[in-house]
C-alpha cells in the first residue's frame, strides 16, 4: 500500500477506497483540531469566560432563569433568553416601563434600596469615587452564618462577571460566590466587615447601563420571596419553624441549626451552582 511494502499491487478499488477512507479520517481529524483551535482562540479573546457562564446558565433549572420582569410582576412568565445580561437585552427597556405589580411587604430581611442585587445572593454598592463594594446578602448570611474560612482574591486581581469571586468553607462544604460585576480588586474585607471586596469596575458605575443587569426594588422582593419558598421546601416541614418564624423571619446561621438538611442542594441553588 505504501512504498517498500512487498506483495501489494494497486487497483482502481484501492484508489477509490483509500480516497474515501482518508477523506473520512481527515474530516474527523480536522473537526477535532478546529474545535481545539477555537477553544484556544476563545481563551485568547476572553470569550471563554462568557462561554462558560452561558453554558452554566443553559444548565440552570428553569426556576433560576426567570426574567427579572417576571419577578417584578411586569410580565406573567418569561425565561431570561440571554444569561441575565440585561445590559444588551433588547426587551429590557420594553418591559422596564411596565408598572411593577409590587409585593413590597417586609420579609424581615434588610435589603436596602441603595444596593443592587445579583441572583447569586451578592450585592453591589456604588461609591462616590466610582468604585463599588461587594458583599453577601442577608439571605446568604443567614444560611451560612460565620464561614469557617474565606479565600479572597489578592488586591489588583481581575474578577469577571458571574465567575467565582471568592470561596468560602462551612462545615466542609465548598461555597463559590459568583461575582456580580467585573473589575479590579482594590481592597478586601470579610465576614466581620460585612463587605468582602472593593472593586474598580471596568465600566463607569455612573452610567446606569453598568449595573442594569442587577436586581433592584420590586424585582428583589419577587425574587427573594421565591427564594424563601424554595428554602422552606428544601429544609422541609419539621424544620420550618426555626427557619421562618412567624411573619416569615429567617433564622440566622441555619447551616448549624438545621444540620440534617441537604445542604449540597441548598447551597447549589442559592449560589447558582450548576
Amino acid at each position, binding site marked *: 500500500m*505504501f*512504498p*517498500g*511494502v*512487498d506483495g501489494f499491487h494497486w487497483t482502481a478499488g484501492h484508489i477509490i477506497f483509500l480516497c474515501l477512507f482518508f477523506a473520512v479520517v481527515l474530516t474527523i481529524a480536522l473537526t477535532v483540531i478546529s474545535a481545539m483551535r477555537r477553544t484556544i482562540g476563545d481563551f485568547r479573546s476572553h470569550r471563554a469566560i462568557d462561554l462558560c457562564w452561558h453554558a452554566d446558565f443553559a444548565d440552570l433549572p428553569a426556576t433560576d432563569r426567570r426574567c427579572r420582569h417576571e419577578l417584578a410582576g411586569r410580565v406573567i412568565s418569561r425565561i431570561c433568553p440571554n444569561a441575565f445580561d440585561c445590559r444588551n437585552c433588547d426587551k429590557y427597556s420594553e418591559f422596564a416601563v411596565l408598572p411593577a405589580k409590587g409585593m413590597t411587604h417586609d420579609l424581615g430581611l434588610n435589603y436596602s434600596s441603595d444596593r443592587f442585587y445579583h441572583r447569586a445572593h451578592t450585592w453591589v454598592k456604588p461609591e462616590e469615587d466610582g468604585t463599588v463594594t461587594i458583599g453577601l446578602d442577608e439571605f446568604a448570611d443567614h444560611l451560612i452564618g460565620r464561614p469557617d474560612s474565606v479565600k479572597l482574591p489578592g488586591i489588583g486581581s481581575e474578577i469577571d462577571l458571574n465567575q467565582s469571586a471568592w470561596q468560602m468553607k462551612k462545615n466542609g462544604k465548598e461555597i463559590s460566590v459568583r461575582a456580580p460585576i467585573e473589575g479590579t480588586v482594590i481592597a478586601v474585607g470579610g465576614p466581620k466587615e460585612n463587605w468582602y471586596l472593593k472593586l474598580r469596575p471596568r465600566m463607569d458605575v455612573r452610567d446606569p447601563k453598568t449595573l442594569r443587569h442587577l436586581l433592584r426594588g420590586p424585582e428583589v422582593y419577587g425574587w427573594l420571596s421565591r427564594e424563601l419558598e424554595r428554602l422552606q421546601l428544601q429544609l422541609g416541614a419539621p424544620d420550618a419553624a426555626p427557619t421562618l418564624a412567624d411573619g416569615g423571619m429567617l433564622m440566622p446561621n441555619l447551616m448549624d441549626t438545621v444540620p440534617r438538611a441537604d445542604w449540597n442542594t441548598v447551597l447549589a441553588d442559592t449560589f447558582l451552582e450548576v
Partner: protein
Amino acid sequence: MKVTRRDLFVWGAGAAAGLVFTPVPWKLLDDVSIWTQNWPWIPQPPRGPVEVKQSFCSLCPQGCALKVKTAGGWPVGIAGTSTNPLTRGALCPLAFGAHQLNWHPQRVRTVRHNGVPSSWSDARAAFAKACSEGPVVIIDGQPGRAASTVLASFAEKHNGSYRVEMSPETRALMPFESWTGVSAFSLGYDLENAYTIVSFGAPLLDGWGVPGRFTRLWAERAAGRSDPQLRLIQIEDSLSHTASRAWKWVNIRPGSESAMAAGLARALIEEKLVSARGPMPVITISAAASQSGISESALGELARTIVARPPVLAIASNHNPEIAALNVVLGAVGAHGGVVRRSKRTGKYIPAEAQIPNARAVLIDSSVPWDFAPDSNAEIFRFVAWDGGLQKCDWLLPAAGFLEELTDIPNAPTSAVETYAIAPQLSKPQFEIQSAAQFLVSVDPTLPTVEKVIHSRCEELFHQRAGTVYGQEVTGVAKFDSAQKLEAELEKASTWVGDPPPPGELRCELREWPPTMIAESSQNWASTWNAPVLPPLATKLYRESSLREAPGRRTV
C-alpha cells in the same frame, strides 16, 4: 542569526511532515509488520545440507525401498524408490511418518531391568550367566537376515533353540510347507499372472504384502469397472477397505472363511468345474452355505464365477489349511499364477509358541512384533526400540530405531522371486543402542558379525552368477567382475533379484481334507509392523479422518 525555540519547533514540525513523504517511515512500519509476523519461539525445522539417500524400511518383513531426504544428518522426509522392481515407488502410509518414530516419547532410551534403569554390562553379565545355567530360546521375527544367522548360530553353539515368529502372510503358506515339503519361506504367490484372486479376509489392499506389489497391480489391472483383467473377490465378514474396493464382495458370517472355502471346493468338485481330483470336503454345500450365511445358489454361483477367469488363486489372511486345500482343488499350487516356489533354499523354521517350557532365558529380537508375549517363567531379554507397555520382560534392551543400524533385507513374504538387499544406516543413534546380534557377538566373540555375514552372502551371490541387480541402472550379476563390486553396489541400496524358477516344479498331493481351523481376524497397515507404536502423524490422521479408528496402539 539567533535560533529561538520557536524556530526549532517549526523546523522539527517541518522535518516530521517532510519525513512522511519519504519511504523511511513506511519501510520501517513494514519491517515492524514483518517482524511481528514471525514467532521465534515456535519449533523450526533443522538447518543443514539437504541430501537424498536410499535405504530400506525394516519396520516390517516386507522391507520396502525408501528414498530418504536428510538434513543435517537427520531423515526429514520419506518417499518410495520408483526404480525398485518390487515396490515400484509405493509405500504403506506409515512409512511416510516413520522418520519421526526415533523421537517417539515411548522410545526405549536405556537398558531397563524390571523397569529400573540398568547398564549393558549388567545385561550382558545376566545373559551370560543365564546361558551357563540352562537352555536359552532365541526368537526371531524376520529370518533370513544376517542378524538371523548370528542369532541362529548362537543358539546352535549354546545348546539353545532358535524359533521364528512368522508374519500372517507366511503363516497362510504354512499348510503348503507341510504338504509339499518346501519351506513356507521359499514359497510365494504369482500374483502378476493370476486373473482371479479370491481373498478370504486377507487385507490385500490394506497392509498385505508389499504395497507396491499388489496395490499397484490391482490399480493397473482391476480398478474401475472397465472389463477387469484381474478380478478381486473379497470374502469377508465386514466391508473392509479391501472389500469396498474389490470387484465383488461376498458378505459372510464372522469366522466362516473355512466353511466357505470347503463349500466352494465341494461345489467346484461336484459341479465338475475343476479337473483336479482331490479328497472331497466333509462339509456339505448346504451346511457351508448356512454357516457362512449366504444362499446355496449364491455359493454355487460364486464357485462358477471364481473359475470363470483362470488362473485362480485363493489367499488366506492367516494360517488356514482349508483355504490352502481350496488352492489344491483349484490346481493353483505350483501353477502359473498360483502358489509358486521362488528359491531352492530349504530353510525350515520352528514357529515360536507363546508357551516356552524349561527355558532358562528367552531372547527376543527387535524384529518380533511387540504383540508376541512369551508365556514363560524364563528370564526374558527383549530387544525393542519402542516400549509398547503392558508386557512382562525382565530386561528391556534399547534396539535400533528407524534406519539407525545397518541391516540386510531378505525376501519379502509372498514374493514370487528371491530378493536380497542391504539397508544402510541413515540416522545417527541418539543413545547407546545395540541389536540382538551385536549383543550376542559381545557375549560370544567367536560369532560372525552382521557385517561379515552380509559380506559372505554377497560373495555367495557373486559366485552363483545368477540374478539381476536393480540400482540406478539394471545390471546382471554376471556383469560384475568381483564380489566387492557387487557388495559395493548393494550397499548403495540396490536390490538383487533372483531369476524366477521354472514353473511346475512344486508338486502337492492332498491325502485327506484338512481339519477346520478358525481363521484369525485380518490385519491392516496399523497392525502388521513390528513397532508397538505408530508415527504420531498416523495416530493424528486416523483420529482426524473417518478412514479408520486410531488403532489400539499407544498414541502420542
